[in-house]
């Protein structure tokens, strides 16, 4: 019972019989599995973008479930910017082995060799080269006609308008004003040669759903999500992981801070948060108390109003 402002009591409605109720996680799971199976059946050459983060971990588990007892019928693709945390790369290789999936890794080697980083360039151009360009090159190189991504609609405003099957033209670009209508669970997978579809099986999951599912299903995730003392450059409220030498300012010394990462990206652009949450229930408890969105500690979305939409138009996930 919750007390209300005017002193009366708010009574929750009478529960329906348990037969008539399917928990939200089971429903989301069933829908995502349906999407994964549609893609595996309708496309010649699908691939799953595997970013090593919590959403990718959930997506990977759903793929295992969708095709059980068979293997996952498509490869995993990791776009490696060269700035991923070392722990992430080790985790990636171990997971791919554990689930028995083929793992492809693609790096924009010319850009990496040229010393591309978010301090030399701005974050927008750095992302453009190391993520978007690398992704488009990889999709083209392997001839993938469908690519799964772990993006969710609750992450960001332009993503809220994204389809589950998101059409991309021959250049891999998104046209938000010309999206295919998407009704019921009937997905239009028809493309002309060169065109492709990005598929988002977690579209309707929220950050809370993802954490609860990881907890219930005991899905392995990278240790960086759990709080422990870590060396950080402390700049006011911001904590910058000590991973790449160029991040440090002149004379700046790292401090040990009990902290964790709320979302995983490239180390120079992903801030950590002070936290004591070293278990999944604690992370979920912490999430309830948060007053800012998970991307707030990502540098990349803040550069410009609508920057996610611009990146997506160019071919970003």
């Amino acid at each position: 019972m919750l007390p209300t402002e005017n002193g009366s009591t708010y009574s929750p409605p009478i529960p329906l019989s348990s037969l008539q109720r399917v928990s939200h996680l089971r429903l989301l799971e069933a829908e995502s599995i349906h999407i994964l199976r549609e893609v595996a059946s309708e496309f010649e050459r699908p691939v799953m973008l595997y970013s090593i983060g919590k959403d990718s971990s959930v997506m990977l588990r759903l793929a295992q479930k969708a095709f059980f007892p068979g293997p996952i019928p498509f490869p995993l693709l990791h776009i490696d910017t060269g700035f991923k945390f070392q722990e992430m790369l080790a985790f990636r290789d171990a997971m791919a082995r554990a689930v028995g999936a083929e793992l492809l890794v693609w790096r924009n080697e010319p850009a990496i060799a040229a010393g591309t980083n978010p301090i030399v360039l701005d974050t927008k151009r750095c992302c453009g080269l190391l993520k978007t360009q690398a992704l488009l090159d990889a999709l083209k190189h392997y001839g993938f006609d469908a690519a799964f991504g772990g993006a969710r609609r609750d992450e960001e405003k332009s993503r809220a308008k994204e389809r589950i099957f998101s059409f991309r033209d021959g250049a891999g670009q998104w046209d938000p004003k010309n999206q295919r209508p998407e009704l019921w669970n009937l997905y239009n997978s028809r493309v002309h040669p060169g065109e492709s579809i990005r598929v988002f099986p977690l579209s309707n999951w929220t950050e809370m759903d993802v954490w609860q599912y990881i907890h219930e299903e005991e899905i392995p995730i990278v240790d960086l999500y759990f709080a422990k003392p870590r060396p950080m450059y402390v700049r006011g409220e911001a904590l910058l992981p000590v991973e790449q030498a160029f991040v440090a300012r002149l004379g700046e010394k790292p401090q040990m801070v009990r902290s964790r990462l709320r979302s995983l990206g490239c180390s120079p652009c992903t801030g950590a948060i002070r936290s004591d949450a070293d278990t999944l229930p604690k992370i979920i408890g912490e999430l309830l108390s948060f007053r800012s969105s998970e991307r707030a500690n990502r540098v990349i979305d803040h550069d410009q109003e609508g920057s996610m939409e611009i990146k997506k138009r160019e071919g970003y996930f």
Partner: protein
Amino acid sequence: MACALTQPDLHDVGTDFSIDAFLEREREKDLLRFSTAGSVDDGKSTLIGRLLYDTQSVYDDQVLSIRGKGTAGPQLDFALLTDGLRAEREQGITIDVAYRYFSTPRRKFIIADTPGHEQYTRNMATGASTADAAIVLVDARKGVLPQSRRHAYIATLLGVRHIIVAVNKMDLVDYDAETFASIRSEFESFARYAAAESGHTPELHFIPVSALLGVNVVRVSDETPWYDGPALLELLESLPTTVGSEIAPFRLPIQHVIRPHQGFRGFAGQIASGTIRVGDPVTVLPSGRTSRVERIVTYDGDLDVAHAPLSVTLTLEDELDISRGDLLTLAGEETRVARRFAASLVWMDGRSLDASRRYLLKHTSQTVPAEVRLRHRVDLEQSIREPGRVLEMNTIGVAEIETRRPIALEQYRENRTLGAFVLIDAETNATAGAGMVREVLTDDASAVDARPVTALERATRWGHAGVVLRLKAPSSVANAFERALLKAGVFVVRPPDDDPTTPGVLAAAGALVLVAEEGGHSISLRIGSSRAESLIHGETTKAVASLLRLLRESNVLHHQERTR
């Protein structure tokens, strides 16, 4: 008056907060989907903003990013939270469907937030297609506007079970009970029409609200003592979601055959309705072969029983030839298998419905070529049916569909999954139309073949009626005109000049017969036996354009798309 935003502690993370108890509660939560539609000033954004804000579903940085922006003055302009695309922010309108998520201690919610303008009917239909409930906003000062009727109609047509009429801005009519009652009765009479026309009867709920002041949104307010129903959020928390789908007949469209090795053949799909147990006798459609369920296989271990909407994999006792697109039912509870049916259509493509174009019909997990012939259109403004063979983008009609292969299907009102389909333009791959099966038609192909082809069928096929056009014009204009018609896909023929009988015969066969006579510098066109004669002057290009316009105005050509 400033927007008083008070946040009740629905997720009170206080000292006595127990994460285990929270997770236990979360496991019990189900999911309700609802759609909303509305335009700039009817308070839709404010209402959604209030639901999100009052249930603590908006983060501080998101609120911070819209503070001081937009058109709501010192108040938060909630539209900025929901309008995610640049074009929308620039134009200040919602164009595309946006999905929003929030939860209460009892339930999780997905909002499909859709635009309310007529030109975005397809977006409204998209949002309604998966919704358990729809909120139709009515401005208490303005009453039931065409836009509210349109949204209610689309929600009804798409089988949304609960329509919640939120009579908003009640504060601006001094919470007048009479105003509310008159809107209610007007809406009810339209709802009766929508139910009769669409074949679906949703349950109606009426709530007087002030989204701006939070009256009857999260809790029932003292401002409306004459109202004895629940607040909007209370209603949303108590509406049934998947009730009935487990006790409905079992339907499993096969999506994928899982064959890791010779000894295992699993049929994977998401149960559309009903319940299945190990040992149950099943029928495969359309083949009609039967077997029994051997195992219900999942990653988390075999199940004895599974029900909608779970995604499962079944193995059968017998080796049957089953592939993607087949439907599994319980033996004795089979659906109809047919090639012909009547369906409601919502057109979604810039290219109008055209009987001569090739369409692919996607139904459950199969895609089959289909022919589509429009029966009539529905004019929502006047609540009437109107004849026509063309369905433009964002219009609604009823069509007869014939698929190349038989498919297992049901009426949409009986089963939302087995009765729904989309039409894909085979050439452009655009998702062109959304359809809902109204009635399965007799599938006796021989009876259809034996009937004489009617003038209507010919006209439907060619996109125009058979008619003789008598043109008096210089031969250059006549040639250019014939070429333009040909390019437009018209079945145009030009018999020898001195033949008196052929034109009539060809016209009866459905052709557009062009009889041209050299005519100096003036041009005249006589259509059929009618005297719709017109004199046209000018250069060739202009003359041809005028002739085409004249054909359209006289309803010889049905629409313009084909002439591009």
